[in-house]
């Protein structure tokens, strides 16, 4: 994804035709890099001065545009983030001086002292040229406040923390742009009208509030990891944003075990990215992936995080999922995977997080540990339960077990049911091949139930 509104790189079909690399290119690359790395810091710090999210966004946007010009003439500053923050905050202060009516608007609630003693560091003085306080956590927790709908939390996080444009977010979630724009506007309006405070929650609320933040980041990752529609198996842009966010949270909250668990989970899962499709873009399942091409550096980084995420009390759901991902990452082959231990970890995960999706995954692992019948029985039970109606991986998993049991006709029918539930062309292609193998006709998803 390009830097929001300040994409300095010429598109593939246009831009400067004359020169190759020059000082302009270097500064443009620096601006793009600063957009990716510093956006959240700059916006979070500017929001504190502006007291209004829209004004802060505008000023930060302007600061990036100014950087394109100034950096190409004067060189890239030693600390691009500080340069941008100072520029954006100055703009905000100027705007507030110029336009007193801005102060009449419902302000962003900036500096309530944390109600629980010792729950968060005291707010640093907001003096102009002191060390700029790192407000990124305030920004993240505000975007993921439980008073906002999950989809609004996701959109705001991408917009305010990652700096994506509404157009980019709409594309990522396959939503019409006006719909996404309205969603973002409504959410921002609620933040000021309902007075959602710009702060890190106190110790008592922190576990729940952090879980919401981690859920948003995980949702971004899974949306990118297996796009619900479109051409590609993986949407690299969303996946990378999610990992960036997890890394940012890890650096800001180094002691939170679930943050560690989430980052480990994303790294260990993403290590397989290059092998999840073949050269023609066709989906490859875990069993068929070329493990020699897994990203060893990402696996090593993820594995190193897992013990710390599991230790020190009952592990949370992200730590447990990371532990499961770690067993997959360490297994020399699909057949040699420690399926029994994976089933055991799923049992612990179910206790921490009784979700039907976890039950389905457990059933698949059980099928590998104890045979397809055992897994199938569990899946049929889940099917009767009904909570996963419309979830494409239930009929897909069922079909796979039926296929392994040689019940080809039933398998083909279940594959067709799965096909009717996905718009992702790589998945449809995969399911079509399986239907053909089991002897059924692909048909336009007419086996759905």
């Amino acid at each position, binding site marked *: 994804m390009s830097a929001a509104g300040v994409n300095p790189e010429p598109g593939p079909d246009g831009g400067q035709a004359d020169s190759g690399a020059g000082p302009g290119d270097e500064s443009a690359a620096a601006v793009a890099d600063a957009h990716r790395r510093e956006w959240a810091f700059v916006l979070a710090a500017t929001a504190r001065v502006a007291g209004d999210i829209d004004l802060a966004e505008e000023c930060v946007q302007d600061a990036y545009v100014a950087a394109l010009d100034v950096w190409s003439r004067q060189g890239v500053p030693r600390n691009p983030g500080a340069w941008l923050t100072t520029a954006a905050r100055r703009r905000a202060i100027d705007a507030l001086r110029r336009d007193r009516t801005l102060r009449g608007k*419902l302000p962003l609630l900036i500096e309530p002292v944390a*109600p629980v003693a010792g729950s968060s560091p005291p707010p640093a003085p907001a003096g102009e040229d002191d060390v700029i306080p790192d407000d990124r956590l305030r920004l993240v927790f505000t975007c993921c*406040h439980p008073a906002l709908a999950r989809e609004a939390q996701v959109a705001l996080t991408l917009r305010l923390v990652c700096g994506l444009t509404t157009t980019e977010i709409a594309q990522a979630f396959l939503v019409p742009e006006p719909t996404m724009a309205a969603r973002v506007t409504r959410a921002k309006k609620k933040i000021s*009208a*309902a*007075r*959602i*405070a710009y702060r890190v929650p106190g110790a008592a609320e922190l576990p729940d509030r952090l879980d919401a933040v981690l859920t948003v980041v995980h949702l971004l990752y899974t949306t990118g990891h297996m796009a619900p529609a479109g051409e590609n198996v993986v949407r690299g842009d969303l996946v990378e944003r999610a990992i960036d966010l997890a890394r940012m949270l890890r650096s800001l909250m180094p002691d939170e075990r679930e943050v560690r668990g989430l980052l480990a989970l994303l790294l260990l899962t993403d290590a397989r990215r290059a092998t999840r499709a073949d050269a023609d873009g066709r989906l490859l399942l875990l069993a068929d992936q070329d493990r020699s091409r897994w990203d060893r550096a990402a696996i090593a980084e993820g594995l190193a995080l897992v013990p710390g995420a599991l230790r020190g009390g009952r592990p949370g759901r992200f730590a447990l999922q990371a532990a499961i991902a770690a067993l997959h990452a360490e297994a020399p082959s699909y057949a040699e995977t420690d399926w029994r231990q994976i089933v055991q970890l799923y049992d612990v995960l179910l206790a921490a997080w009784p979700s039907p999706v976890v039950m389905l995954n457990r059933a698949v692992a059980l099928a590998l540990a104890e045979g397809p019948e055992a897994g199938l029985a569990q899946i049929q039970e889940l099917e009767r339960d009904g909570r996963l109606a419309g979830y494409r991986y239930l009929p897909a998993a069922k079909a796979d077990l039926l296929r392994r049991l040689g019940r080809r006709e039933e398998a083909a029918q279940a594959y067709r049911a799965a096909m009717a539930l996905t718009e992702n062309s790589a998945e449809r292609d995969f399911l079509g091949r399986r239907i053909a193998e089991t002897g059924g006709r692909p048909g336009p998803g007419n086996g759905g139930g």
Partner: protein
Amino acid sequence: MAEYLILIYEDENAYATASPDVFQEVMEAHNRFAQQVGEKGGKLIAGNALQPTPTATTIRGDVVTDGPFVETKEALGGYYLIDARDLDHALDIAKLCPARFGGVEVRPIMVFPQG
């Protein structure tokens, strides 16, 4: 501080069939709540219980009809107007608001810019 309205939505039938003991408990819970608002650092500005929806009369345009504006299983049965620091504070208080046969909705009061 800002004002929030806590709207209490409950199943009226549950009250219609409730025993005197239950009523007593509910009354006590509301008295306790009135105290707790202050203890939580908020302020109780106003609050009332409403007569049930069969007593409601609705006017649209100039047509007067019998009954509530919208027919729902859980109807608006009362409200509190409170003063709180921010939404988290208001929610913290509203969580204590008795609503055993339903739940509450928290709405910020709109502030109009002056002048």
